[in-house]
């Protein structure tokens, strides 16, 4: 690199300027000069000629202002630009002769600054210094003054219709991508995929003069732009507010549709101020704040006092500053002390909502684990004491108190990990809409009981089976719009999600109002696929349950949505892995309901304790169908095929648990012992045990890494007497028995 090249570059700019038509510099010319200056700056930086860099910087700013059309006096600016070229030539010539430039050139920056209205500072001689952009990006350029008086209003109904349908599609796209973003908050592609539709909606809305839609999408867009640039992080609040914004936009767009159909005289008559505040708060990184109601407000709300009475009370309070409003009202006899104390408690509850902290779930898990052990240990202590004769009465009483506290502690600590199913339901609702769109169906999703709580870990675990059920309902359960109309049903299919607690279980119901299960088709399929061999005498319930059997799938073609070669048997297995149960109800022509029951937590198992020899085992109650002592006649031993027991007309293989675990049993003959019918994923078998001890809830403990892969055993539990009981894994035990 030498000074000659630089001189040539400057000369090139000079001659370009010479050939410039009149003084009117247009955008392409300005762009050309910008690029030439950029090249020239690079050369000057390599040579370390600071004056050239500074002057070029001033010229750059002039060009930028030409492009952005922000010059008060364009002619003057362009002649300043021209002087810049001359100055560049002079500086470079001087460098060539003397290797330096001693004359004053800084005033050029002031001139350029004056003509553009921007402050331009001389830069340090950093090589390769970038062309600076002086101003922060302008927020939003208002339409030009001359244009603002004119109407952008385009009263074209067909355009509005297009906007309504395309805009709705775009918002649905946003909803899907937000879910993706929620799972990958770092992924800029997802932010972009949400940003763009808002941007497009804003653009068209500005032409159609839909100011509310334009404004809201603009605010959401800027929020996402900040997230994209890393100025804001993708927090749940941000996602919530974007979702709420998308909903509001959708609402406004559908109100436009209603207006077109003559069903709404005041479209866009919505109050967005709350939403705008939320957007601003997220924008500024402010956490939402819940306000605490004043005591008086609570009392009015509860109907304890009238507003007039409150005002009187407030007057008393005003004259006696020490007095509290509650006191004043009680003294006046307007309210009873009880009402005030209730209101105070309510106020305290509201206040406590304000103070939440985030805790690592691992810490919570540890806590719950240890509380579990505490409960067990104290049970052990209690047993020890009751075994002692002439027990100390005081001690017994104190231990009983300890027991109460410990179980209270257990309840509280378990509740810490409970969260409402709401979010999962919302994700599923959006998924249902998404899936229905893919298969060309129309659905409405209704939710019920979304505040029902469930262990956090379970919430994650049940998501996949539920997703599969939803896909199945939309894809196979619901008919297409045409079919529905033919049957006299509403065009839109209905998917209902319900959650509730029942019998210590968390129950989820997924219903559709579709065609229902086809009994004959199921039977034909079951026979064809050899899922069953004899279908006579099966009840409807039993026939419906066939779809949970492996190798069963009635979908005629493999669809993209649910027919991935896995059927409902996978769902059943997943549910059972979580120690849950799944049931099905169906009415032909009316619809199908899947009912899945899950335990509230995975940490505790409801089990039956059985004794084999000196060992005790815990069988999950969910796997037990019945327990019996067979007659001598019911037992069969077929050589080479093993032992069977006839349980109510059904022949079931007999599994001698003591054989599998090498235990010395007390009883060997099935008619002396107890048989427990246990259901696995594919079959049922009878386990031979000595005795049933009882039922218990036990805290599941892992056996540690060294023992974790023992067939037939899924874990251990500390029993009431401090001894260990092993928890049987029915599926593994079946496999073990077949070897």
């Amino acid at each position, binding site marked *: 690199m030498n000074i000659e090249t630089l001189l040539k570059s400057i000369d090139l700019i000079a001659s370009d300027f010479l050939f410039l038509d009149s003084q009117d510099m247009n*955008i392409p010319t300005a762009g050309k000069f910008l690029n030439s200056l950029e090249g020239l700056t690079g050369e000057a930086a390599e040579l370390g000629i600071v004056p050239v860099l500074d002057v070029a910087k001033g010229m750059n700013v002039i060009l930028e202002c030409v492009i952005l059309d922000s010059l008060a006096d364009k002619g003057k600016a362009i002649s300043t630009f021209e002087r810049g070229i001359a100055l560049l030539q002079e500086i470079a010539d001087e460098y060539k002769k003397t290797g330096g430039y001693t004359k004053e050139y800084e005033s050029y920056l002031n001139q350029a600054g004056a003509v553009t209205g921007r402050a331009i500072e001389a830069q340090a001689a950093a090589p390769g210094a970038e062309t600076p952009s002086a101003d922060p990006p302008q927020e939003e350029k208002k339409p030009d003054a001359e244009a603002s008086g*004119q109407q952008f209003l385009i009263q074209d109904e067909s355009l509005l219709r297009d906007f309504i349908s395309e805009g709705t599609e775009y918002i649905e796209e946003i909803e899907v991508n937000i879910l993706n973003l929620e799972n990958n908050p770092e992924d800029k592609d997802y932010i972009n995929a949400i940003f763009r539709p808002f941007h497009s909606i804003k*653009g068209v809305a500005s032409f159609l003069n839909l100011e509310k839609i334009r404004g809201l999408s603009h605010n959401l867009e800027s929020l996402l732009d900040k997230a994209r640039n890393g100025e804001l992080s993708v927090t749940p609040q941000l996602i919530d507010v974007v979702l709420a914004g998308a909903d509001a936009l959708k609402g406004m767009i559908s109100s436009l549709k209603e207006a077109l159909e003559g069903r709404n005289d005041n479209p866009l008559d919505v109050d967005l101020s709350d939403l705008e505040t939320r957007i601003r708060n997220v924008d500024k990184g402010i956490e939402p704040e819940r306000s605490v109601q004043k005591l008086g407000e609570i009392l009015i709300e509860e109907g304890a006092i009238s507003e007039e009475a409150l005002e009187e009370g407030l007057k008393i309070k005003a004259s006696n500053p020490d007095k509290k409003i509650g006191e004043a009202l009680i003294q006046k006899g307007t309210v009873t002390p009880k009402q005030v104390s209730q209101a105070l408690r309510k106020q305290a509850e509201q206040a406590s909502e304000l103070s939440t902290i985030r805790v690592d779930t691992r810490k919570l898990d540890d806590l719950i684990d240890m509380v579990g052990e505490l409960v067990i240990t104290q049970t052990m202590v209690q047993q020890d004491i009751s075994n002692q004769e002439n027990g100390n009465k005081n001690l017994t009483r104190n231990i009983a108190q300890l027991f109460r506290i410990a179980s209270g502690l257990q309840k509280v600590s378990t509740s810490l990990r409970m969260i409402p199913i709401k979010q999962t339901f919302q994700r599923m609702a959006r998924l249902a809409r998404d899936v229905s769109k893919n298969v060309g169906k129309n659905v409405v999703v209704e939710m019920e009981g979304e505040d029902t709580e469930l262990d956090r870990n379970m919430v994650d675990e049940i998501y996949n089976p539920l997703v599969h059920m939803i896909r199945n309902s939309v894809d196979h359960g619901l008919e297409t719009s045409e079919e529905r109309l033919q049957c006299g049903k509403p065009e839109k299919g209905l998917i209902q999600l319900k959650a509730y607690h029942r019998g210590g279980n968390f129950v989820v119901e997924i219903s559709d109002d579709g065609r229902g299960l086809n009994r004959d088709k199921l039977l034909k399929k079951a026979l064809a696929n050899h899922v069953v061999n004899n279908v006579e005498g099966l009840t409807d319930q039993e026939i419906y349950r066939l779809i949970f059997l492996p190798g069963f799938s009635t979908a005629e073609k493999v669809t993209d949505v649910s027919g991935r070669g896995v059927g409902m048997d996978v769902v059943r297995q997943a549910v059972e892995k979580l120690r849950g149960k799944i049931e099905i109800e169906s009415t032909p022509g009316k619809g199908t309901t899947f009912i899945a029951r899950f335990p509230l937590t995975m940490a505790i198992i409801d089990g039956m304790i059985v004794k084999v020899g000196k060992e005790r085992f815990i069988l999950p109650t969910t796997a037990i169908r019945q327990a019996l002592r067979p007659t001598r006649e019911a037992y069969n031993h077929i050589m080479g095929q093993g032992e069977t027991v006839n349980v109510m007309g059904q022949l079931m293989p007999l599994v001698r648990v003591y054989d599998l675990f090498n235990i010395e049993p007390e009883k060997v003959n099935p008619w002396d012992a107890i048989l427990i019918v246990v259901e696995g994923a594919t079959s049922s078998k009878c386990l031979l045990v000595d005795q049933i001890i009882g039922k218990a809830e036990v805290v599941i403990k892992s056996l540690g890494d060294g023992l974790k892969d023992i067939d037939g055993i899924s874990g251990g539990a500390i029993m009431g007497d401090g001894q260990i009981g092993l928890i049987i894994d029915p599926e593994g035990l079946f496999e073990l028995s077949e070897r």
Partner: protein
Amino acid sequence: MDKNIKILIVDDFTTMRKVIRNLLKSVGYENIIEAEDGAIALRTLKNNEVDFIISDWNMPNMSGLELLKAVRADSELSKTPFLMVTAEALQDNVIAAVKAGVSNYIVKPFTAEVLNTKIEKILETL
């Protein structure tokens, strides 16, 4: 001014293309074709003698700036007038487009008159 030039509108939002088409028609331009993203626009440009490109800045797959660069890099298309439509006159975006050789830019929303003036100004300099 030649109102019969062939104008290509590039925007992913169908309604937006229709808006621009209507505005163009209202000031007498009738010879209009459309493309819904940059990649399709490039193919359309290869198969049609396009006299003028009006493209949105923000598009999936290929942005308006990328399309502009691709057009300017193509020896056959490099002289085609290119008007960039932006939602805001963000300085960085505009300067980047100008450096890449954009003919002019226009900020949404705009009237048919403003659009017409921009087009005529660009055509004058050809």
